[in-house]
């Protein structure tokens, strides 16, 4: 074992899980036995000033680490990992910041005292499943920032047509850095399955999906047909229609450069996606992938997309720091 390397020993300080929202999904994708996830930590929760006159206001500030989801209650709701919010309580109020990460949840409270009042009885203001937003035409509004967090998975097995074995991509080896190479677009539905969020912008006549990863996007007109000619594209060409309250996005016109379920494909690839907003904070997602030259049956991917209204799409310039990995991994 090389210098400085010793076996892992990290103590996880488990804290009471008192958050009012669902537990974060377990991490996935570690290539062996994963070490413990680090605990969620609330580094700061403050009120300035902590005592106000009736009609006054105070600023709440917070910062958390290793948290997947945070809420500040009452009155504030879902919040980002750090931030500030001005409150004007009409009675003495205790605010609770709940931070949930892969290792569990923790909470911290701060009280804003309002002179001449007694402590208020408060209720969570989290929105519920009954409040799925709607567009002007009455259809569900899918707008929002979502992430799949690796919970969209292949259902069942890959079945190939006879003679298609050559489309299989060899499993990554020690010297093979894998197929997600060189900052090129991942295709569909891979772009949805990455640990990066994406913004859905939804109008009655179109839906746009803006991916943080690789700065990819798709725009699907609703109610239109595909053009007769579709130039081969990494992310394909998308059109959409409604099936009840499910938005169905039909994607064709792919190039043959991406890899799906460990297989290459042809330009006859077709992906049909189903988006169904089942709750304010959840979209049920299914994708059916077919290529008659490769797959004997359509592949079915299924999972949920979680809303994160507190996030924003970040800048991901993949070419910025792509490096020569053969050099990095050379024995010195």
């Amino acid at each position, binding site marked *: 074992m*090389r210098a400085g*390397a010793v076996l892992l020993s990290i103590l996880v300080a488990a804290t009471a899980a008192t958050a009012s929202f669902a537990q974060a999904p377990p991490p996935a994708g*570690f290539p062996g036995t994963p070490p413990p996830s680090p605990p969620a930590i609330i580094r700061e929760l403050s009120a300035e000033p902590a005592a106000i006159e009736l009609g006054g206001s105070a600023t709440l500030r917070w910062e958390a680490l290793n948290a997947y989801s945070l809420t500040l209650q009452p009155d504030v709701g879902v919040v980002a*990992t750090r931030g500030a919010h001005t409150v004007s309580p009409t009675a003495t109020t205790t605010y609770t910041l709940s931070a949930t990460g892969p290792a569990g949840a923790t909470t911290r409270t701060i009280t804003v005292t309002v002179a001449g009042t007694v402590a208020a009885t408060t209720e969570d203001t989290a929105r519920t499943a009954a409040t799925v937003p709607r567009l002007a035409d009455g259809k569900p509004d899918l707008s929002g920032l979502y992430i799949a967090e690796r919970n969209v998975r292949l259902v069942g097995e890959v079945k190939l047509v006879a003679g298609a074995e050559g489309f299989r991509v060899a499993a990554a080896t020690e010297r093979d850095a894998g197929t*997600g190479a060189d900052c090129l677009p991942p295709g569909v539905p891979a772009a949805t399955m990455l640990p990066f969020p994406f913004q859905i912008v939804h109008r009655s006549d179109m839906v746009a999906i803006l991916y943080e990863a690789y700065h990819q996007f798709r725009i699907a007109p609703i109610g239109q047909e595909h053009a007769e000619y579709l130039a081969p594209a990494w992310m394909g060409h998308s059109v959409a229609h409604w099936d009840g309250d499910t938005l169905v996005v039909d994607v064709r016109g792919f190039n043959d450069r991406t890899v799906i379920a460990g297989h290459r494909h042809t330009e006859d690839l077709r992906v049909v996606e189903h988006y169904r907003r089942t709750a304010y904070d959840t979209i049920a997602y299914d994708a059916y992938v077919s290529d008659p030259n490769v797959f004997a049956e359509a592949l079915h991917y299924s999972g949920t997309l979680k809303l994160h209204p507190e996030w924003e799409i970040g800048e991901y310039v*993949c*070419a*910025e720091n792509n490096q020569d990995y053969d050099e990095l991994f050379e024995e010195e």
Partner: protein
Amino acid sequence: MRHVLHRIHLRIAALVLSSAACALPAQAHHSWARYDGENVITVTGTVTSVEWASPHVVMHFTVASASGEPIAWTMEMDPPTLLNRYGLRHDVLMPGMRVKLTGVPARSGAPMMRAVTVETEDGTVYRVSSRV
């Protein structure tokens, strides 16, 4: 020299010109295949530089050998957008800081690792990978 972007550009150009039947390039940034996932290690060292950029934030640091000589190590973690959401800002890890890194080492034996947590001197443990 770690930064060889001109080679990357040439490789991308070669890939674009290649047909789909060609093998994928041997070098890329995403796979964990070159790391030994069953050998989780903890390494303590001193930060020398941090490249806060996508697709992976890369940190260079030194680890003292048995004879006291510094050994240059390289560590990669998630990209800036994800680290920021975990709560790790770009101005936390600075040259000269002592850090304890947990992650998986290169199978090749090179002083290279993929970190999943970073502990700073004040005992704060930062998540730096979506996989833990």
